[in-house]
């Protein structure tokens, strides 16, 4: 049935484009965030070590800072996990809209 073929080819093409855009944008942002965190961790460790050696902070405070940086790293990973889930939901919503629009146009052609 040509009408079915037209509609499903359009749906397929639109879903492919949506998937490419979604994954590309998310992956670039995640990589950039991870890089920024590693750089800032290096800077902080240098600063805190210097403060410990010069007596501006003590062992307990240094330990709290190290622990908080570890927790912050884990929270950043969780943020990325959550953002990935949001991308999935957004992609699913986009696919639903494309499919629904396609099916409604198909119904219009059949009536």
């Amino acid at each position, binding site marked *: 049935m040509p009408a079915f073929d037209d509609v499903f080819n359009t749906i397929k093409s639109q879903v492919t484009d949506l998937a490419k855009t979604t994954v590309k944008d998310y992956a670039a942002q995640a990589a950039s965030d991870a890089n920024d965190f590693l750089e800032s961790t290096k800077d*902080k460790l240098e*600063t*805190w070590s210097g*403060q410990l050696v010069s007596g*501006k*902070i*003590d062992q*307990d*405070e240094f*330990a*709290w*800072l*190290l*622990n*908080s*940086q*570890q*927790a*912050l790293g*884990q*929270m*950043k990973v*969780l*943020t990325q*996990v*959550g*953002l990935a*889930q*949001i991308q*999935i*939901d*957004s992609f*699913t*919503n986009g696919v*639903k809209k494309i*499919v*629904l629009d396609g*099916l*409604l146009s*198909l*119904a219009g052609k*059949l*009536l």
Partner: protein
Amino acid sequence: MQKTLSAACLVCLFAIPFFVSSCKTISVYDDTTFVNTSTLKAQAVVLMDHATENYSQYADKVDAILIDAQKLYAMQKAREKNQVTIAQWQKLMAPDPVTKQSVLPGFFALWKKKKTLQQDFIDDAKTQVSDAFDEILKLEGAKLKN
């Protein structure tokens, strides 16, 4: 003609449930959570600034902040499909299994133990706590609106 009509009906029958069905993987945006988390962040950071002074003067305020934080944490546990945000709150509030230290309650516990804290440490700690809250806010703010 009848065959075409039947096909159109089939298409609609398929489309409607497909459109209304929900298959979310993560909770949707909650404005109350976002606003309350932002407020708590501001209050916590302002209070931390007083840690050069004696803890006993601020003990009540510390308790109030920690109670608000626990309430907000409990609210997150009640939301559907909110596991990632709950895990973030856990990192902020609960002791690490290895180091036995926590971020927000841990700072105030250190202040209580030492009576006063050094300005350099307070400045570093404020950045850490602020960044931790920002991660929670970043995720909540990115969630899809209903």
